[in-house]
């Protein structure tokens, strides 16, 4: 365990070093060399993550009082600033969630980095991409390691910066430039809430580090309303970062960046940072805050799933799909399923990045064409990609024995239990939507995924000229295989994902469970307090059925299985049925105006972009235009006038100086000259005049003396 901090510190600093090195030597590193260097860094990083996991797993040796797997979290903190009576500390907080997240991040990073060597071949800023990727890895590692909200915020913003750099990597494209700015600004809007909420927590609870916040939220406590508000505000940061409603508009446009970047940050890691934040502040969320979060999550699922059905661009479709899956995670947190949310986060990272890299493989083969109209029948040209995409789709759809199945079942089971509890409690029936929305989405998800797969790989080729030269790059296939493997096994009990997440709950209970009346990290707790976790149907885990509420939970899990167990197959069949002949069926339906209008509405992302442009962007632009007008027509002339007045004043002063002041001086000089001329007259140079004056003076003086004497 003593080597753990060094491993983690190395994990933090190594990508930073790599990024700086690549930026510094950018001009000297030729094309593949920069990529190989970055891959070496990524491999080292993964090695460090695996080593850290090994150390962690051995760490506590089963003793609950030591740091390590199943024991305690490992905490290292140091003071950053002290303001008044409160201090802002930076802290490294390591629990099993941290370790498993680091492993996921580094694994996906290695796949993406290796993939990018081939994908970005020929790009004139080849090495810089890898530098940005490594910088991103540094930022996300720092975020995951952070145990203090302040440190988390710092790395949060860094992650946003890297996202901006990577989305706008091809900055010759105006779409990329504006997408990068849009992403950054939308995140910023969420960050305002985050900072205010964080400030509220720090102000009331006196510390910025998570363990202390968790503890002090129940020792001193915070007024319920304020705590709810603070929690909702912190959630605003997650709304921005994880593309939840209403700040979801940036994610589809962010697809203007290179596909590996999309895979890394917009599928696996950055967008998951929002969910990670929620997982960390979970004990600070009141029941009302969590209800709000659940509602937002459900709304996002709706928007994402529906819009994904009508997208004509493969990457945009995947973006909306990511949005919907993040909605699942957020909903899970809102309903209290901490394990469900984090587990789904990890599995989603694997199959979503797999889907994105497969799409990238298609794009690379089709000269960066991404519209579905041009695809079709590519299974002949891109066999490995076809299979990889299929595996990813099945995993996401929840096909049994694939990773997505386990995580999705957990969430829906929890939602069913929660809904049942809500009904028992006599709450409004509308809240049952929080169950039905994810259930319906579970049917629609495989539908749109199958749509994508069928339209891309199956059937007739729609654009022969483009697909004739489509060839699969062997190098690109290798990461696909890596990720496919993980998309399959990540859900299994023996694979350390599920167990790590569950252990994280145990470790956090070291801080929180000391207050049994209050909220704990356990799922379902706090909404309507049930201190047990939901179990999945496959594992034979014995629960403690002492609590009558426990039966609700098990019932919920069974119900979930019955509701959505075959959703994947139903959706797949429907997708094949509708899209086997390409767009034929849908285009025929489009002759009906309502269907056509619906399709247009969904394809544009429910017109949110236009709404925001009208309501937010246009007034801001008008304000800016007005300010410019004022500046140009009022302020500038005023300044010009001032300048002219000053110049005129200068001229007047100069005149005064020259005429009057100089005149006085000159006349004084003239007077002196004339006086001198008069005085000069006495020095005529004639001796006799001198003598005469002397004699006269003498006579005068003597007369005066005589006068006085006599």
């Amino acid at each position, binding site marked *: 365990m003593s080597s753990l901090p060094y491993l983690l510190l190395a994990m933090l600093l190594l990508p930073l070093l790599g990024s700086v090195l690549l930026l510094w030597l950018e001009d000297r590193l030729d094309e593949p060399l920069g990529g190989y260097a970055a891959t070496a860094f990524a491999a080292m990083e993964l090695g460090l993550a695996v080593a850290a996991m090994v150390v962690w797993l051995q760490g506590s040796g089963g003793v609950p009082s030591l740091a390590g797997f199943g024991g305690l979290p490992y905490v290292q903190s140091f003071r950053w600033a002290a303001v008044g009576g409160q201090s802002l500390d930076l802290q490294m907080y390591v629990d099993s969630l941290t370790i498993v997240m680091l492993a996921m991040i580094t694994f996906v990073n290695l796949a993406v980095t290796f993939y990018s060597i081939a994908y970005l071949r020929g790009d004139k800023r080849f090495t810089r991409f890898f530098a940005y990727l490594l910088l991103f890895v540094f930022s996300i590692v720092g975020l995951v390691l952070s145990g203090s909200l302040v440190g988390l915020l710092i790395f949060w913003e860094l992650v946003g910066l890297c996202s901006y750099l990577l989305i706008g990597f091809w900055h010759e494209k105006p779409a990329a430039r504006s997408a990068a700015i849009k992403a950054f600004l939308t995140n910023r809007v969420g960050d305002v809430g985050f900072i205010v909420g964080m400030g509220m927590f720090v102000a009331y609870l006196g510390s910025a580090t998570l363990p202390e916040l968790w503890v002090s939220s129940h020792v001193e406590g915070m007024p319920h309303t304020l705590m709810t508000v603070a929690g909702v505000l912190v959630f605003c940061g997650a709304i921005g970062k994880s593309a939840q409603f209403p700040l979801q508009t940036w994610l589809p446009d962010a697809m203007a960046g290179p596909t590996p970047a999309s895979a890394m940050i917009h599928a696996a890691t950055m967008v998951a940072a929002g969910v990670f934040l929620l997982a960390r502040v979970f004990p600070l969320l009141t029941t009302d805050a969590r209800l709000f979060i659940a509602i937002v999550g459900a709304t996002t699922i709706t928007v994402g799933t529906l819009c994904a059905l009508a997208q004509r661009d493969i990457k945009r479709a995947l973006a909306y799909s990511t949005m919907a899956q993040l909605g699942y995670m957020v909903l899970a947190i809102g309903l209290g399923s901490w394990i469900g949310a984090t587990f789904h986060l990890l599995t989603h990272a694997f199959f979503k990045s797999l889907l994105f890299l497969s799409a990238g493989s298609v794009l690379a083969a089709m000269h960066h064409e991404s519209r579905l109209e041009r695809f079709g029948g590519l299974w002949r040209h891109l066999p490995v990609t076809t299979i990889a995409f299929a595996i990813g789709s099945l995993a996401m759809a929840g096909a049994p024995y694939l990773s997505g199945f386990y995580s999705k079942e957990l969430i829906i089971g929890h939602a069913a239990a929660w809904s049942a509890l809500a009904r028992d409690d006599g709450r409004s029936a509308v809240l049952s939507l929080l169950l039905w929305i994810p259930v319906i989405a579970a049917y629609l998800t495989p539908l749109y995924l199958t749509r994508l797969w069928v339209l891309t790989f199956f059937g007739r080729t729609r654009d022969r000229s483009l697909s004739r030269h489509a060839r699969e790059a062997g190098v690109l296939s290798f990461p696909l295989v890596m990720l496919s493997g993980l998309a399959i096994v990540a859900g299994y009990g023996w694979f350390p994902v599920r167990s790590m997440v569950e252990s994280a709950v145990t470790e956090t209970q070291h801080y929180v469970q000391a207050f049994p009346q209050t909220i704990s990290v356990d799922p379902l707790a706090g909404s309507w307090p049930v201190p047990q976790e939901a179990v999945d149907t496959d594992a034979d885990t014995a629960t403690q059925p002492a609590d009558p509420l426990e039966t609700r939970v098990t019932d919920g899990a069974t119900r979930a299985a019955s509701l959505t167990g075959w959703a994947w197959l139903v959706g797949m069949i429907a997708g094949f049925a509708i899209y086997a002949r390409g767009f034929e069926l849908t285009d025929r339906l489009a002759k009906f105006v309502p269907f056509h209008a619906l399709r247009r509405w969904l394809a544009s992302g429910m017109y949110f972009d236009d709404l925001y442009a009208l309501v937010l962007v246009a007034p801001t632009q008008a304000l800016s235009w007005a300010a410019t007008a004022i500046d140009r027509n009022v302020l500038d002339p005023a300044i010009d006038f001032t300048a002219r007045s000053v110049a005129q004043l200068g001229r007047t002063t100069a005149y005064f100086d020259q005429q009057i002041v100089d005149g006085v001086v000159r006349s004084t000089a003239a007077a002196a000259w004339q006086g001198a001329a008069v005085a000069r007259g*006495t020095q*005529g*140079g004639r001796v*006799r005049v001198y003598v005469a004056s002397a004699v006269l003076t003498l006579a005068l003086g003597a007369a005066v003396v005589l006068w006085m004497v006599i």
Partner: protein
Amino acid sequence: MTLGLHHFLFLGAILFACGIVTVLIKRHAIGILMGVELMLNAANLNLVAFDHYTGTAPHGQTFALFVIVIAAAEAAVALAIFMNFHNNFASIDVDRGSELRG
């Protein structure tokens, strides 16, 4: 009437005044020198007169002797200067020597 001091003093005053007027009125350099000699003689007369009519010590006479000596020296120097002046200006008119004017 006996010869009194005031007789000599009055004479000395007249002599002195004549000397002054000569200095003032003459343009010839040597004429001015003559005026100066007159003034010196007037002073000498006063000195000797006082010496005669006051005490036994010959202070006045000694002083007068020195005056004579110095007058002679001064006359020599003055003439030398006049000769120089004459060499430079080709004239003995003191009005010509007005170059030191302000």
